[in-house]
């Protein structure tokens, strides 16, 4: 077994026993990236020299000091997370040359733990999309089937972990952008409770929904990385001030007495029969081990996708106003006035999907339409919150498919935006309600992975990780894909 195939917790133990060095691990992962990148295309930037240099320095230093369990472990970072001195493009022409002068909060944590950043990962432009096909720079391919999408928007983060070109990665999730690609690529992805991970340094898409989270090939690694990045930060006004347990230490696969809610609305029309069967088989297995199945109802789910696209686009239209060709990034050439410069820069700098979302946001916020769209969407959001609260009086976690189907083919949904949006149907309610949720592999259909999603109460990440851990015990950990 090569080092790149090993999990973060295995590598951590090997490092502490001096069975290998961080340089060896980093080299193995970088060589794997060199071999797989021509086919997968997960990375936008690879920092080979910097990563190896840091690993070497660390190997020399760690013999003398206490180390963080994740020290010396390579990690890939989604390209919308600000990395000081390292290109952060959001996969957009608009930020093709942007080098942040500061680190995101999560990068302070990652660097503080002496993790080794291997590079920046591909995504849908400004995290808007469900297939990573909206990247300005390149397409990313699903390691399980190179003709298929990795999901999005954190497609590079999921594909790199699945291919073994990253041990773990960070993504961001506004409407399913961690869980959906995790499901398509057969890896574990956690969307944390809103407020538990600081958004400082995450390039904003929809500020009331965005959250950074971990992706890994197993639940233990996911728990370790989440434990590293959660916590209070004064730089994010929505950051929760509370204590967090050691999630990896607290992992427990005993589901005896765990009440699992099954909402009929997530197993209805629009979700593939084979996906429902696969998810329910994994849930039934937990039932055999002592979990209790409870039927619940979340009727507002049918409006969730509509409310989500209204709210997220409204916030995006405001957040993306900052890209004007003045302070950073792309500026068009040959303009006659300030307005002309703005319009030319934004028209040439943004891709079509970003333009559609900015215009949708502009539309739903414009006078005369605000009450019919934005206000109604916010009222639907309150109903969704209320229904979740009622459901969690009857159960501890909710189990659903993470996606309505397995990974679709590249190009399959590109002509029809609403068809693409429908891929988010199982995930958007979680962001609207600010809840945590995890996608864990629960089976395969025709060689393509299926993800089971557990949704929990706010700050119940340990419960979610434990439930996912139990599924993983039954199914087996994901391995780096061989191809």
């Amino acid at each position: 077994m090569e080092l790149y195939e090993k999990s973060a917790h295995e590598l951590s133990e090997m490092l502490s026993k001096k069975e290998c060095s961080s340089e060896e691990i980093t080299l193995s992962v970088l060589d794997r990236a060199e071999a797989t990148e021509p086919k997968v295309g997960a990375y936008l930037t690879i920092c080979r020299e910097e990563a190896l240099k840091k690993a070497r320095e660390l190997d020399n230093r760690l013999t003398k000091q206490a180390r963080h369990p994740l020290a010396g472990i390579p990690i890939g970072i989604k390209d919308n997370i600000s990395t000081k001195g390292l290109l952060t493009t959001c996969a957009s022409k608009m930020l093709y040359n942007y080098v942040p002068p500061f680190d995101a909060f999560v990068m302070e944590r990652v660097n503080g733990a002496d993790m080794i950043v291997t590079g920046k990962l591909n995504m849908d432009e400004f995290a808007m999309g469900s297939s990573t096909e909206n990247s300005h720079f390149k397409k990313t391919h699903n390691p399980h089937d190179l003709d298929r999408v990795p999901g999005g928007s954190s497609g590079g983060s999921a594909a790199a972990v699945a291919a073994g070109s990253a041990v773990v990665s960070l993504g961001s999730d506004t409407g399913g952008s961690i869980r959906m690609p995790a499901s398509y690529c057969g890896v574990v992805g956690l969307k944390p409770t809103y407020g538990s991970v600081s958004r400082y340094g995450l390039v904003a898409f929809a500020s009331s929904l965005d959250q950074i989270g971990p992706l890994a090939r197993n639940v233990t690694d996911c728990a370790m990385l989440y434990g590293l990045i959660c916590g209070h930060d004064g730089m994010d006004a929505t950051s929760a001030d509370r204590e967090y347990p050691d999630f990896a230490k607290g992992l427990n696969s005993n589901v005896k007495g765990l009440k699992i809610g099954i909402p009929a609305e997530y197993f209805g029309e629009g979700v593939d029969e084979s996906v429902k069967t696969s998810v329910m088989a994994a849930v039934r297995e937990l039932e055999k081990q002592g979990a209790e199945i409870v039927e619940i109802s979340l009727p507002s789910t049918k409006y969730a996708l509509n409310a989500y696209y209204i709210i997220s686009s409204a916030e995006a239209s405001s957040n993306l106003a900052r890209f004007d060709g003045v302070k950073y990034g792309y500026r068009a050439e040959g303009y006659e006035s300030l307005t002309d410069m703005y319009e030319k820069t934004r028209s040439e700098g943004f891709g079509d999907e970003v333009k559609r979302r900015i215009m949708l946001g502009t539309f739903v916020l414009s006078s005369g339409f605000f009450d019919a769209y934005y206000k109604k969407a916010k009222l639907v959001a309150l109903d969704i919150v209320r229904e979740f609260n009622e459901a969690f009086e009857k159960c501890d976690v909710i189990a659903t498919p993470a996606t309505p189907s397995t990974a679709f083919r590249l190009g399959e949904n590109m002509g029809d935006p609403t068809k693409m949006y429908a891929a988010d149907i199982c995930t958007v309610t979680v962001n609207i309600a600010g809840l945590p949720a995890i996608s864990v592999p629960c089976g395969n259909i025709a060689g393509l992975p299926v993800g089971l999603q557990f949704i929990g109460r706010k700050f119940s990440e340990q419960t979610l990780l434990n439930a996912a851990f139990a599924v993983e015990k039954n199914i087996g950990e994901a391995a780096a894909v061989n191809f």
Partner: protein
Amino acid sequence: MSIDVKHLAKLARLRIEDDKLAKFEKDMESIVAMVEQLPALDGDASGLDPEHPMKLREDIEGTEKIARKELLANAPQMQAGCVVVPKTVE
């Protein structure tokens, strides 16, 4: 509903090329037709939670400092420590 893409684009400081206008109109109309399917709800949509009010920080000077040169390093055009934009006052 028919959507005036040209007008929307102008409000958003975007410009849609003429040959792409028809496709954008079709897309925007189908997106709006999708999202407008919402129940007739009424009430206070502010979503404020009186039991968990947000805490605002003190209005004090921050301690984090980034040098002017570093901040301006990303500006497309710069002169004498300032960003350069087209003339705005006649």
